[in-house]
């Protein structure tokens, strides 16, 4: 049986604590299922540090440990809490190397979840981190992706913000890009939106609309690859779908970069500009499959009508 993302994180964490003098810090680590089964059931003597309910100081304590060279893994159980946790991570760890020449390598596991978790805890917030210099951002969804991100962290002396999503924890397979010779549309997706986009692509294909689907792992720095450019230029337009807010978020930022690089329109679709409620009708989830399908069709239609009035 293949190893899941959760098991991968757990195994890597155990090895880090046992072999590298690493530390793991977080709130309520042992209390509720060892954070989705991603944390080895070890003791403080072995490197698992249970922090008090210290949303402001907790990350600072982890940053302090990073300065001693312990390469701590700091976990934020709900990524929305980054709005409280950000001060030490963004104002100190992210700047330390550039400003002082003193590296502060800390691995931030910021875990998103969705579905009735309310206004603070919901979904991804990697966009807020992307705008701060000094903090690379990745959003792995598969075991190999998570491992590659970890390897990057261990071979660099930078802090790293890892936007995890609970929907990835049980994934035990890899996701290859779906590229066609002449696709009608190019979809690029981030985090849990990748899962919804995959289903949307299948539905669109049943209606005769062929879509490329490219999975985005690194959000910052964002690597524009030949595969992305070829797909976008071939399809003539694209859409970046994300589990973070659309306005000023990763989807719009990356769409902008791709649009300029490829020379074709690239649109963005993320969370709506409103607070998530706990009730299902008030939720603000990752763009659902149906919404992605509708958006792709709208864009294809508008491109067709545009072609009629604007000769190319």
């Amino acid at each position, binding site marked *: 049986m293949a190893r899941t993302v959760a098991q991968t994180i757990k195994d890597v964490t155990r090895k880090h604590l046992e072999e590298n003098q690493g530390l793991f810090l977080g709130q309520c680590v042992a209390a509720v299922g060892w954070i989705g089964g991603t944390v080895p059931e070890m003791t403080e003597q072995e490197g698992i540090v249970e922090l008090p309910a*210290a949303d*402001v100081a907790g990350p600072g304590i982890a940053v302090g440990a990073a300065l001693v060279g312990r390469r701590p893994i700091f976990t934020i159980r709900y990524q929305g809490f980054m709005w409280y946790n950000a001060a030490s991570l963004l104002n100190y760890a992210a700047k330390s190397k550039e400003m002082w020449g003193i590296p502060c390598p800390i691995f931030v596991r910021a875990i998103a979840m969705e579905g009735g978790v309310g206004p603070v805890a919901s979904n991804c917030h990697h966009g807020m981190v992307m705008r701060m210099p000094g903090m690379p951002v990745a959003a792995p969804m598969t075991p190999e992706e998570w491992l590659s991100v970890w390897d990057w962290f261990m071979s660099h002396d930078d802090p790293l913000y890892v936007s995890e999503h609970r929907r990835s924890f049980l994934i035990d397979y890899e996701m290859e890009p779906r590229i066609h010779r002449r696709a009608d549309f190019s979809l690029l997706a981030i985090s849990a939106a990748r899962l919804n986009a995959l289903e949307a692509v299948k539905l669109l294909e049943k209606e005769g609309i062929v879509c490329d689907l490219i999975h985005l792992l690194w959000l910052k720095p964002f690597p524009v690859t030949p595969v992305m450019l070829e797909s976008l230029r071939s399809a003539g337009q694209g859409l970046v779908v994300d589990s973070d807010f659309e306005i000023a978020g990763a989807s719009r930022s990356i769409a902008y970069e791709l649009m300029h690089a490829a020379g074709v329109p690239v649109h963005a679709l993320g969370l709506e500009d409103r607070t998530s409620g706990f009730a299902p009708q008030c939720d603000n989830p990752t763009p659902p499959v149906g919404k992605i399908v509708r958006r792709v069709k709208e864009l294809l239609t508008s491109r067709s009508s545009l072609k009629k009035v604007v000769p190319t």
Partner: protein
Amino acid sequence: MREQAFLERLYRSLFRIRRVEEEIAEVYPADKIQSPIHLSIGQEAISVGVCEALRPEDVVFGSYRSHALYLAKGGDLKGMIAELYGKATGVAKGKAGSMHLIDAAHGVMGASAVVATTIPLAVGYAYACQAQGKKSVVVSFFGDGAVEEGAFHESVNFAAVKKLPILFICENNGYAILSPQKNRQALDNIPERIRAYGMPAERIEANDLFQTYDRSKEAVDRIRQGKGGPHFLECRTYRWRDHVGPGEDFHLGYRTRAEAEPWMAGDPLAQMSAMLEPSARQRLEQEVKAEIHEAFEFAEQSPFPDHEELYTDVFREP
């Protein structure tokens, strides 16, 4: 009876900090210093007293008003002045300025512009040191405003729970920027509040240099021996100059010169000066003045960073 060498060491450190900051204040209007400055003049005795109790391997974290702390702990003077000038030879290559001084080689692990934010960093540093069996003591310096921050309370709680090797120094100058303590805190009882966390805490009145040293020494020695964990000192002091800038600010109306006068009259620098032989004092002062002159000359002559420096120390591509 204190030894003469001890007294000379304290006086030298006090005088050096005072003269450095007076020189900064004098130079500042010429716009050569590239960053805002928060002078410690009037508050030097706290940093000098505490740092005299430390060893080179001990580590300090400070606030934006950390010139005194930086120098008292042994931070490089030339690098500091060059940093204020924004020069390439500064301790952070001109990128950090006055509020973010650092000299890791001398145990100055950095200061920050944001109130209370280095307190948890100091606690985390102490935690990791304890876990690795290091004998270093960590000292966290902050002002009375920081005591109102959530980060402070979360940090002292954690330090007490884990019995960490850390000394907390609250430099209480009575004002958070321009707001007096009585307008911000219902009770003037900071140590009492800290003791509720399970940590010894005490107050040192009126810029008392010797008591600051004695209490710090006792606390640091106890912490180093692994006996009982953290300690907290509230050190009452007074800022003579602007909150930010080189001048005085009594005209602003939030405090009066009459309030400041007793503090100025009890200046530890003047008290220490009277304890030294005049010839020894003059020798020390000449040495310090020459060192300061050399440091400012060094800063003046140093180049500004190249434009390429903007792209150094930034993270690499994945």
